[in-house]
């Protein structure tokens, strides 16, 4: 836990450094104001850096102060996490090619696998896949129709008709 906390502080320092580097390339013409578009970026970079320093200091001198015990298990269940992550990223990758409904249903199916595996009852049988796919489509399809047909908001479809 302590090492993770130090890593968070260090990560913050890296972000601060990136923001500082970015700030050097922002012009400073200030006009009447005396401060230009690069002023707040510098303030934020310094603030991030200061927070990073203090977080590292807290982490190495007894851990973060006034911490609430995080809820749930002490160790993460990584297989479940991978299922859900793949679901979300596959959705991002496929949504424009196979359309909203199918892509979301796929994400749904993969995510359900992940949650079931974290509950210790992962079922990879074909029936479970089909049932979850059907539920996924039953949720995604009405949402899709509501947005495309009722609200006329563009969501990608497999065809151009706005129904699939």
């Amino acid at each position, binding site marked *: 836990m302590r090492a*993770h*906390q130090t890593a968070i502080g260090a990560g*913050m320092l890296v*972000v601060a450094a990136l*923001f500082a580097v*970015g700030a050097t390339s*922002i*012009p400073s*013409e*200030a*006009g*009447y*104001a*005396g*401060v*230009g*578009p690069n002023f*707040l*970026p510098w303030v*934020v970079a310094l*603030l*991030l850096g200061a*927070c990073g320093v*203090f*977080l590292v200091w807290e982490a190495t001198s007894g851990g*973060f*102060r006034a*911490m*609430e015990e*995080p*809820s*749930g*298990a002490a160790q993460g*269940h990584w297989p479940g*996490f991978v299922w*859900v992550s793949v*679901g*979300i*990223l596959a*959705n*991002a*990758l496929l*949504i424009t090619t196979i359309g*909203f409904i199918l892509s*979301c249903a796929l*994400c*749904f199916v993969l*995510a*359900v696998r992940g*949650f079931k595996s*974290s*509950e210790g009852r992962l079922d990879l049988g074909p029936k479970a896949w089909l049932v*979850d796919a059907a*539920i*996924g489509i039953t949720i995604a399809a009405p*949402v899709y129709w509501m947005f495309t047909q009722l*609200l006329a*908001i563009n*969501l*990608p479809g497999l065809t151009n008709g706005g129904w699939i």
Partner: protein
Amino acid sequence: MDIWTQLLQGFATAGTPINLLWALLGCTIGTAVGVLPGIGPATAVAMLLPITLKVDPTASMIFFAGIYYGAMYGGSTTSILLNTPGESGSMVTAMEGNKMAKSGRAGAALATAAIGSFVAGTIATVLVTFFAPLVANYAVKLGPPEYFLLMVLAFCTVSAVLGKSTLRGIAALAVGLAMGLVGIDQISGQARYTAGVPELMDGLEVVLIAVGLFAVAEALYAVLYEGRVVETQNKMSKVHMTALEWSRSWPAWLRATFIGVPFGCIPAGGSEIPTFLSYATEKKLSKHPEEFGTTGAIEGVAGPEAANNAAITATLIPLLTLGIPTSNTTAILLGAFQNYGIQPGPQLFDKNAALVWALIASLYIGNVMLLVLNLPLVGLWVKLLKIPKPQLYAGILIFATVGVYGMRQSAFDLVLLYAIGLLGVVMRRFDFPTAPVVVGMILGPLAEAQMRNALSIGEGKWSVFVERPASVVLLVIVAAVLILPRLAQLRRKPAGTA
């Protein structure tokens, strides 16, 4: 100003069948997300922000407001019946409500929570009706220096005062401000931190940040750490209060309303402090102190629930009159206004009077709807608690996709969504507050613009912030907010060790 005529006009607008339908829809969705664990009002409003592309502003603000306070009603149902609170404001309700439910009085607890929410919500709405225009009248006189300091005050209270750790609060705020920097600078038109990615030119969408931090992070956190957590549900009983329970509830409702409203008004939002204060008050004043924490005291549910609703309603005062959000949900509501090119603030009451008054009128209407939705129909909502977790969270991911993709039609945003979700998991695991991120991201660019305008007025001199009486007062308040809690701590420490 004739408040009555305007309010009546508001009722006329809010009372059209189509707007009533939006209010009902909002209240229904709000109650549902309040009841469902894993999704709160901020997430729900954020996911539905794409409707701002097509629906007219009045209807969608009525809809969003319905979700906002509907979730407060629904949240109490979950916290009484499940042993995990649905949203943070219901934490205190959960303590006493759970005890009542365990001793077979779930129905009475649900009744006092719903009726208390109604009483407090309605009184708070009356106060909003009369005070918001007054505040707006005064706020017109404020200039950029004062606005900037008000926003600084909001930053300080949200990040430094409310959380457990000032450092983690400020760190979260810094992350939010950093996110707000991405995109085109409002004043000079200069692109900042876009790294040549065209998608980043328009800045990060608030939908993306909110849905990532709340919905996706919640799902990822649940799959990582909470798979083995078994939730137990308490038994329902008839929703009914005896005469004695009524007479014990109503003073608690009223006291709590007057505790909650001031906390909602000042930019120190969040409903946790008023709910805890109300709980402590009721415990002290109760004639049955032995019931607290044992069999469950009805005052301990009535008070905090009413305080919660009063505070939530009152957060609309700083949002509408000053354009300053003090909670996650109001920050996203501000984002909704911005999508319409409307900047909440004192001018809102002049320029968009019809919208504001329709919104306020809809609060009255919505409270009545919610009372009906939550008392006779409570059994229906309880059924929602039976949805198994895998399908619930996977379903939330579908809605997250709609919200984020619907807003900008960009698959790139979906990848960013996942990244923000990971950030949210780390923040949740290491007890970083999320409200400063959202408030910082939305309010940051506004505060920057106000600061640079203020400095322009002062011809580049920082002394502009101490030369105007109102801004000096605000500076003193900011300093007090930052220093007083520390002093109180220092004074308490020697007393504790002695």
